[in-house]
């Protein structure tokens, strides 16, 4: 495989990992964001702390905790084995898990804040007009917090593309399997003559990040235009 093909493979893998982890997290992120915005149960604080933990823990520690939780002798690890027939460590799935866990708090928090900004009286009006709680959520709360969901998704995606600490512990550095852009840059930096490849990967990384930002801004502008009509 020539260098260009190898670098394309790295970028492609990173994109796949980020997109897959985002796809996995969107629904739970919306659900938990809503729960944290509207639920008043005393257990909320505990659950919220647990979800937010990866945001404040060193990613390497998060990676180690995941490795321990998903280990061969742990219930979660055994469940994974019985479902997939493989062990999670050092596979592409491990990259997805690491990116998901580390990015999840950003998504949840962004959704939570935008749902907090939705006037609860609009939800009350919807209920008195005959729409049940789930219907009200789909018709009022979710559409009104769409900009927050979008912003959270962009943050999540960027964080997933850049995920390094938890990934290197849980997924390692397997070419074609777990070697994402940050892992590859780290490897190339300690390789003689890798500077050119590093520069190319860095350039692509910057391009992807800018693309995500502009894409989100464009979507938001479109949303605003539609609302203004």
């Amino acid at each position, binding site marked *: 495989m020539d260098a260009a093909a190898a670098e394309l493979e790295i970028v492609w893998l990173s994109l796949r990992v980020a997109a897959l982890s985002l796809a996995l997290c969107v629904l739970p992120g919306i659900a938990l964001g809503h729960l944290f915005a509207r639920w008043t149960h005393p257990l909320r604080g505990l659950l919220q702390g647990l979800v937010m933990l990866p945001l404040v823990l060193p990613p390497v520690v998060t990676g180690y905790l995941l490795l321990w939780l998903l280990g061969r002798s742990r219930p979660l690890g055994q469940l994974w084995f019985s479902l997939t027939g493989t062990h999670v460590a050092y596979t592409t799935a491990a990259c997805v898990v690491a990116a998901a866990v580390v990015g999840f708090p950003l998504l949840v928090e962004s959704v939570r804040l935008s749902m907090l900004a939705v006037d609860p009286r609009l939800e009350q009006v919807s209920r008195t*007009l005959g729409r*049940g709680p789930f219907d009200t959520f789909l018709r009022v709360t979710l559409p009104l917090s769409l900009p927050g969901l979008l912003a959270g998704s962009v943050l999540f995606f960027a964080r997933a593309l850049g995920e390094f600490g938890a990934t290197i512990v849980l997924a390692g550095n397997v070419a074609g399997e777990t070697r994402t852009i940050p892992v590859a840059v780290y490897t190339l930096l300690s390789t003689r003559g890798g500077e050119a490849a590093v520069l190319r990967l860095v350039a692509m990384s910057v391009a992807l990040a800018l693309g995500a930002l502009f894409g989100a801004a464009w979507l938001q502008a479109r949303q605003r235009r539609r609302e203004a009509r």
Partner: protein
Amino acid sequence: MRIAARVQQRFRGFSLDVAIASEGPVLGIFGASGSGKTSLLHAIAGLATPDAAEIRIGERVLCRQPRGRSLAPERRRLALVSQDPLLFPHRSVRANLGYAPGAAARLAAPAGARILELLGLAALLERSPRQLSGGEKQRVALGRALLSDPEILLLDEPTSALDAELAREVLALLRRTRSELGIPMLFVTHRAAELLALVDDCVVLEAGRVAAQGAPLEVLSRPQALGVANLVGVDNLLRLRVVRHDEDSGVSLLDLGAGECLAAPFGAAAAGSEIAVGFYADEVMLCAQRPQGISARNLIPCRVERIDAVAHEALVELAIGDHRIRARITPGAARELALEPGRALVAVIKTSAVHRLG
């Protein structure tokens, strides 16, 4: 339709404990802010969970607490219109109107066309809520509530966020809604004039308790409770028969009894019918003799019944025709005129100070 509600709920530093029953069809709930009006309305709508409650609309039990069922708001078949229109900002006027289950179909049917016409909404359908004025928004909110086909309309001070002119416009629409659609309403307000204009029966709330119940004019014109007196701004509220119209002079003459008439601004009410009018106690001037060469049309002989000193003002109760009215003057003026019960005076009231209420 019979409305019966008994609601008890404790809040921090405030408790609501009321029992009301009314045949409606339009029941007014009157009280100052903090009297528990909105809490009561939210309990009826199912948006708050009272500690103890029994709420019935017609034959249906909406809530029986504790140990009993409580219907979710969406199953109570009532619609709430509050002070803020609370239109869904991400939906067009049409989509707002068609929001409730079945409302889109009703909107397309003759019944929907009637509501659109009544509220003047046809031209607004394709707009976004942000392109509407305050009065238009409230009209859309009213239309959205009516199109949900509720058994009763809950109105939580629907005019108080609007300026006086728009408030009158919305009130006029509510009156038309009442007469044309005949829908029962529960109308919360702190404006006495709105009660007179719209409701059949009226409950006065004070600090979470029922202070009075009865026909609005009765409740408001006998403010035993000081709270009510404060609220109505010591309005003079009268229900009078129209004697005749004098289009040339621009007045309608109303019978005060004992051969006296009150000149009110020219109105279209048929002679012989009764109308409610109000004017502020501040608008009544008192003269020792009948004044000469004055523009005010009402120079009516009266007699002092009582004088109450309230802070830095004197509230004078006067017998005028067969009615009682109040005048608010300064204590200095009361001294100078040597006011005392039994003293004969002439009350001077400008025609334009007399407002028609209902």
